[in-house]
């Protein structure tokens, strides 16, 4: 059984269509990056998956309808939105007591062990913690829950790079196994490129690309073409071209590597470049430096 299965998923607010008939299928044990510009429909899709919003069409998460069976679904699904959703008035110890009291799959000792590795005190109020510490606390709570699906919506927004790196390292090393599935959206897409197994690009409420990362690496090739070779290279119909230091960086879709080898340096495109090529938008100043709207 697929972890998430959607057919003809639609959602509109008044006259605005946020999700325009999405079909998708996420298998168990994958780490899926959901990438899209602001307003592309990422959050609405995640909200539908989490039972936070009603929708049209068919959507099953772990075999359940999220809108009508949210409380049941949340026994097996965890969710971290951007940092500021933990109640600020709560004490750390109260947050643990509460989740332990209402969650049948929560193991208190795991949360306490994870917190012991941080500088968070059980007696602190959440309002007294830094942004990074609140995220650590939320992650500690979530990792102590034996869930099948973890949804991360910009989980590291506003955190510095050390915290961001630690966040994903902890997630991969201490949490992820092949019975679990993770869906993540983030603006810092390059930072998690090596973490993902699958990619989904969403644009104007539609999925424009759904692929495993391995398949992408076979399908797309980026070539740094010297200007003399450029006209020849263009005959192979690159899907995107931009100028870098007087040479042309061209992206090819489904062109065999042998045909490209003579044209220049071949490399595997990063997700940000791919996103820009497929969705359009502005060219990033330098590959991998800044986050493309995700």
């Amino acid at each position, binding site marked *: 059984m697929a972890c998430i299965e959607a057919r003809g998923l639609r959602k509109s607010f008044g006259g605005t269509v946020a999700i325009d008939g999405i079909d998708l299928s996420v298998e168990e044990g994958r780490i899926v990056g959901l990438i899209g510009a602001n307003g592309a429909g990422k959050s609405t899709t995640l*909200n539908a998956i*989490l*039972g*936070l*919003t*009603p929708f049209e069409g068919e959507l099953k998460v772990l075999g359940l309808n999220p809108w009508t069976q*949210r*409380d*049941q*679904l*949340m*026994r097996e*699904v*965890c*969710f*971290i*939105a951007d940092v*500021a*959703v*933990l*109640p*600020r*008035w*709560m*004490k750390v110890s*109260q947050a643990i*007591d*509460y*989740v332990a*009291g*209402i*969650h*049948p*799959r*929560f*193991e208190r000792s795991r949360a306490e062990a994870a917190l012991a590795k941080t500088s968070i005190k059980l007696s602190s109020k959440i309002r007294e913690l830094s942004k990074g510490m609140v995220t650590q606390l939320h992650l500690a709570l979530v990792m102590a829950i*034996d869930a099948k699906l973890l949804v991360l919506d910009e989980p590291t927004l506003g955190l510095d790079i050390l915290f961001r790196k630690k966040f994903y390292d902890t997630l991969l090393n201490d949490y992820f196994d092949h019975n679990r599935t993770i869906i993540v959206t983030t603006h810092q897409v390059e930072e998690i490129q090596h973490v993902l197994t699958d990619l989904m690009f969403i644009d104007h409420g539609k999925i424009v690309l759904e692929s495993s990362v391995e398949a992408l690496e076979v399908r797309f090739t980026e070539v740094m073409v010297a200007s003399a070779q450029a006209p020849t290279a263009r005959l192979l119909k690159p899907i995107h071209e931009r100028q870098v230091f007087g040479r042309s960086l061209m992206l090819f879709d489904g062109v065999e590597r042998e045909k490209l080898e003579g044209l220049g340096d071949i490399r595997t495109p990063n997700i940000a470049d791919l996103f820009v090529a497929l969705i359009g938008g502005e060219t990033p100043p330098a590959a991998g430096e800044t986050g493309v709207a995700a």
Partner: protein
Amino acid sequence: MTDTVSTFPAATRPIYWTVRRELWENRSIYLAPAIVGLLEVLGIVISALRFPDHVQIDGELSGDRAQAVLGAIYGALGMPVVVTALIVAAFYCLDTLYSERRDRSILFWKSLPVSDTVTVLGKALIPFVILPVVTFAVISITQIVTLSVSALILKFYGLSAPVLSTVPFATITLTLAYALAAMALWYAPLYGWLFLVSAFARRKTILWALLPPLGVCVVEKFAFDTDHFYHLLGDRFLGFLGAAFNVENPERFQFSLDRMTPLDLVSAGGLWGGLAVAALFFFGAIQLRRYRGPV
């Protein structure tokens, strides 16, 4: 997964933990009535120390007179605590489903396996059960402490004090419990309305709570030159007294079991009509919480 099953608690108690969470967040639920009770004790102690003869009760204290005096004392002691609890209840109801959207914590609560129905009904226990129980406890303790302390002071001055054994504690306690229960049930549609507004409003909850009822009164007055809705509201605030108690000769109110009229209460149309409206409001609040996200 068989090895992990035993390590998890078999059953969770979402209602219990919802109530505990509310008490963590809203400490005024028990602190405000307790502080009022404490201030009453303090006031009476100071008064007894300064003017012992004012607190003194002359002559034999027995029969109807004792009842009337004690009734007055306990009425005066209970009223401020009850009013405080009602104010706390009103603000709690108006804020509870709004503040979780305003501080975005609703996203955290909804990421946990607790349904909207359980959440809203758990929160509703605060005005319907927790606050009446707190009020009952505070008033009872205040009465006993006040009586004991003032008796001690009067004795110290060599003045006569009411003998504790003559106080009809059982009747007073029963009357208080009955009055608080009747009040909670009678006020159900008011609490329900505040919950509905709390779940609905994107800002300015207090205006949403007050202006629509006022608007209905105004429209009715201009359109039909009647004021049924106004009287309906008035009856909602004070009507439980007439339904739950025999209030003839209120100036000679006594604590006696004949004063309670539970049969009149349960046969009052106002009680059941109010509960039906409250059920609708709470149903609406549950539905709204499903749809609403952070504001």
